[in-house]
């Protein structure tokens, strides 16, 4: 079991948390008339973290404005539980960014892991950047008509450049035929 799992093993529902949640669920479901007795929701004990207060205070103006705007948006977008389907394709979906990931050039810092190698190869008139390390490539990106495209290998550790080129060529063919 790796260390991450060991960290997560310490995240558990405590008895206090369990009681609190069950009481709050009872109160919430009771609001719908499922229960006759309405139970007051249990508030968690707040531990004052002054460092957090200081951090919040330093950005209070921007956060308050943002929270007001967001709360108005969320209230407008809140969906009635009756419309909540098992597919979870409606209500409260996070606006997932559908764009393919982009990759940082070799040696640069950023949100993504730096890669050791970046090779540009022209395929059918398009410059394609291949990313990888130790002679194996696992990702590629290119631009056609202003649209960004990317492809990754099935093997998470990477494949040869020739295999990666074949994957890209296949993807390009799919795009052309769509």
């Amino acid at each position, binding site marked *: 079991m790796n260390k*991450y799992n060991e960290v997560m093993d310490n995240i558990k529902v405590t008895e206090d948390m*369990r009681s609190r*949640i069950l009481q709050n669920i009872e109160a919430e479901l009771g609001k719908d008339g499922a229960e006759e007795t309405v139970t007051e929701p249990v508030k968690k004990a707040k531990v004052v973290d002054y460092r957090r207060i200081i951090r919040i205070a330093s950005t209070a103006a921007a956060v308050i404005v943002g929270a007001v705007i967001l709360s108005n948006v969320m209230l407008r977008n809140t969906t009635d539980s009756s419309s*909540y*389907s098992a597919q979870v394709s409606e209500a409260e*979906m996070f606006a*997932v960014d559908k764009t393919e*990931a982009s990759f940082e050039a070799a040696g640069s810092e950023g949100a993504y892991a730096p890669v050791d190698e970046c090779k540009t190869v022209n395929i059918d008139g398009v410059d394609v950047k291949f990313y990888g390390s130790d002679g194996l490539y*696992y990702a590629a990106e290119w631009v056609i008509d202003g649209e960004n495209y990317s492809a*990754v290998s099935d093997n998470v550790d990477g494949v040869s450049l020739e295999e990666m080129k074949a994957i890209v060529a296949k993807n390009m063919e799919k795009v052309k035929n769509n």
Partner: protein
Amino acid sequence: MKAQPEVVLDKYGNMLLRVAYSYLQNMSDAEDILQDTLIKYLKSAPEFENENHEKAWLITVASNLSKNKIRYNKIREADELDEGLVAKKEEDLSFVWEAVKGLPVTQREVVHLFYQEGYSTRDIANMLERNESTVRSDLLRARKQLKKILKEEYDFE
């Protein structure tokens, strides 16, 4: 048969709490998400083909609620890992946690579902409604970044 809150909580509580914690990185918000997820489950009473379907549904809901909460809270920094969560003798666990915490949300959620819950990249893509190739690339980048930070001392293969 209508699901009983305590049964669902006891069965899925830890799992959902960990999913939420992986996003929000503090117990208070994670508890809120667990509670909200269970309320949605009990109110909508969806029908499932099997237990795996039920579990995937719950994880999807918890993930979406967590990401909504991240946007709402505009969380930029996570609370310090509660000392009670990590035994003092295993301080290296907090080091691992710090490394994971530093990943972008899109990588963190994939790391959690892959390593903690054991889902394949295809299942993760379906649950999170993301492109499978993007999920794989996020997992790969996360592994490389974690290996670099942890200097291959820990198993993240």
